[in-house]
């Protein structure tokens, strides 16, 4: 038995997974260094290779132990945690990593703005120092789960006299601040899965700053690289939209035509290959850190989800003409595979926009992976306040 297996055994022995409260079990898992084994000791990890987390997860899965609620706290687990580890102060790490893993703290992300979508470095939300606090004013958009979140990671402008990338700072914000107002933002699916967030004189203590003043862009890049890697690591064959289509095909001969068969096989091959590419990426990430290569996976997943979900409507056109329900609701978490084919088709349209548009992903691949020369950037080297808008 490896040392790691022993640690898991000990955890399971000291905290009965069937009776311990999930938050307590997860807290104990964190304390045992089994939350993220590649994190340092004392911070949820054991400084092991990233890939060895799989062993832990498999054992806990087998023991039916409570797992972190990834769907509800994806920002916290997937993005805030690695960012805090890389750039957060010791105090911030101690305050948040454990609660975040236990999901007693739910997190959201305040990055995008109406004028800073693809051009995320154009954020105009201001953070102005006031004693040992910062005062935040601005508007954020496309925030998922903002109404249920306890904390947010925020990118704000702290200096407009330098070029855009140099003037941003990264903060942890308490969503209970009275200066924060959350409004639902309705999507084309009819649901309001996201929010607009208005910050009006919201106050943040300087101790909640992540990284140095002006270092916000580098910190945010770590966050985003971790976001993109989260997409599609190591799925099963026929996972996602393709699985719904193949199941329909196998169980309902009435949808089969020679033309749709040819198209189905093309999508089967494409999605299978993308699954293998995701698996290959996962294998290489077990050793290293996420880099710009994961942008390619996001591109592929978005493309295929959109195409296959559209094809699903053509496969069963009478059903495709209908919709499950247009009533506006604010779901606790987003769903890509739920409701019905019409919903899935519409929801998939967001895949190539949220978390960086496919156009931005292509820029990233072209410049950062392939090393192609940059396009013209009229705002390069110009103080943010002097860029015409």
């Amino acid at each position, binding site marked *: 038995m490896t040392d790691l297996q022993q640690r898991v055994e000990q955890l399971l022995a000291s905290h009965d997974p069937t009776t311990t409260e999930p938050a307590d079990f997860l807290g104990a898992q964190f304390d045992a260094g089994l939350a993220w084994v590649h994190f340092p000791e004392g911070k949820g990890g054991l400084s092991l290779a990233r890939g060895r987390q799989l062993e832990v997860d498999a054992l806990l899965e087998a023991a039916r132990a409570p797992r972190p609620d990834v769907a509800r706290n994806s920002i916290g687990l997937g993005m805030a945690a690695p960012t805090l580890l890389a750039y957060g102060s010791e105090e911030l790490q101690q305050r948040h990593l454990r609660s975040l893993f236990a999901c007693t703290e739910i997190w959201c992300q305040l990055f995008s703005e109406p004028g800073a979508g693809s051009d995320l470095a154009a954020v105009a939300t201001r953070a102005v120092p006031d004693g040992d606090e910062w005062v935040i004013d601005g508007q954020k958009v496309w925030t998922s789960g903002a109404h249920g979140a306890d904390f947010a990671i925020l990118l704000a402008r702290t200096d407009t006299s330098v070029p855009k990338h140099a003037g941003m700072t990264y903060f942890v914000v308490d969503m209970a601040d009275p200066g924060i107002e959350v409004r639902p933002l309705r999507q*084309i699916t009819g649901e309001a899965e996201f929010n607009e967030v208005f910050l009006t004189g919201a106050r943040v203590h300087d101790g909640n700053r992540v990284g140095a003043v002006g270092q916000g862009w580098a910190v945010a890049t770590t966050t985003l690289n971790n976001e993109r890697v989260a997409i599609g690591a190591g799925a099963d064959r026929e996972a996602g939209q393709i699985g719904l289509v193949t199941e329909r095909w196998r169980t309902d001969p009435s949808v089969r035509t020679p033309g749709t068969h040819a*198209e189905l096989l093309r999508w089967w091959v494409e999605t299978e290959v993308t699954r293998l590419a995701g698996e290959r990426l996962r294998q290489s990430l077990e050793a290293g850190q996420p880099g710009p290569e994961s942008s390619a996976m996001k591109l592929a997943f978005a493309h295929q989800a959109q195409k296959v979900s559209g094809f699903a*409507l053509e496969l069963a*056109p009478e059903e495709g*003409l*209908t919709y499950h329900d247009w009533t506006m609701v604010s779901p606790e978490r987003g769903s890509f595979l739920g409701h019905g084919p019409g919903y899935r088709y519409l929801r998939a349209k967001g895949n190539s926009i949220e978390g960086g548009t496919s*156009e931005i992903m292509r820029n990233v691949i072209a410049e950062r992976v392939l090393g192609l020369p940059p*396009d013209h950037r*009229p705002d390069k080297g110009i103080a943010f306040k002097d860029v015409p*808008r």
Partner: protein
Amino acid sequence: MTDLLYTDVEESLRSSIRSTLQRSLDEGLPARLADEPETDVSGLWRTLTQQLGLAGLLVPESLGGAGASAREAAVVLEELGRAVAPTPFLTSAVIATTVLLVAGDEENLPALASGERTATLVLPWTARRGAWTPVHGSAEPVAGALGADLFLVPIPGEAGGTSLRAYGRDEVELEPITSLDMTRPLARVTLTGAGTEIVSGASADDAVDAALAAGAALLASEQLGLAQWCLETTVQYAGTRTQFARPIGSFQAIKHRLADLYLLLVGTQAAARQAAGTLADGGDAHELSIAQATAQAFCSDAAVHAAEEALQLHGGIGMTWEAPVHTRLKRAKADQLALGTPDRHRSDLAQLVHLPAS
């Protein structure tokens, strides 16, 4: 070759419809219909009918109509498609009207032509020429049924043939179906009365087939108008939305995608005009069928692609309920499934142009 351009008369009809729609159709209405499906939209149709005579466009003057051709109807559909206007033009003034014209029914046409009544052909909205079966008791999803007064239904007749019958509003039961495109809402239609036979046998089949063929031919023009709205709106947005201190339309990748979309619409327009023009000209039935199947195989996908590109190039804005792009996406996707999917039309073409599968 049929004339693939627009005549001056057609262009003037286009201007009238466009300005009437600008005046009479609240831009927010298409999206609002999802939340308020009971909204009374009959006022718009009344205006289009009373001011422009659209209800009777294809009806001969002798029966109270305008005696115009499929070419003019196509221009109307381009404009209605641009605006995703909730009107029964396609279902009543094109498809149901063609049923009655080909069936030689002179009784119901005057009321349709005047706009006093609207009608619909009761078949699943996915039916196409040569690929439908008579209705046994009920049909779904049927377009144009909600709000219609007259229901034209092919049912199994005596001795195995088709009986094409007209049912009044009190002879059918309607159940609304929540639809992907709520600007053309669908319903389940159940026959509760006996109806009145219009024609039967081969004449009934011919009337239904001709109506479905005309619907497919002219749906291409609705798809064209919708796709052109998507291109124009996106070009305008790309010229004004700034990111990285440049209008996004100055980025070459965006430009090339819009150029490709333009190219796609050049084809869409040609295919739609060919289908409308050959339908108007009459002539060889086989060539008509080729033009119709070609138009549906091409324009359906083109309109969906145009709406998808519009959404993507509008970025996050495009994903919001508030922006109008989604109303076009929903119509485009529903239109792709309506009156035969591209896949089905391609398999029709395989027969028509002698390219056998095996």
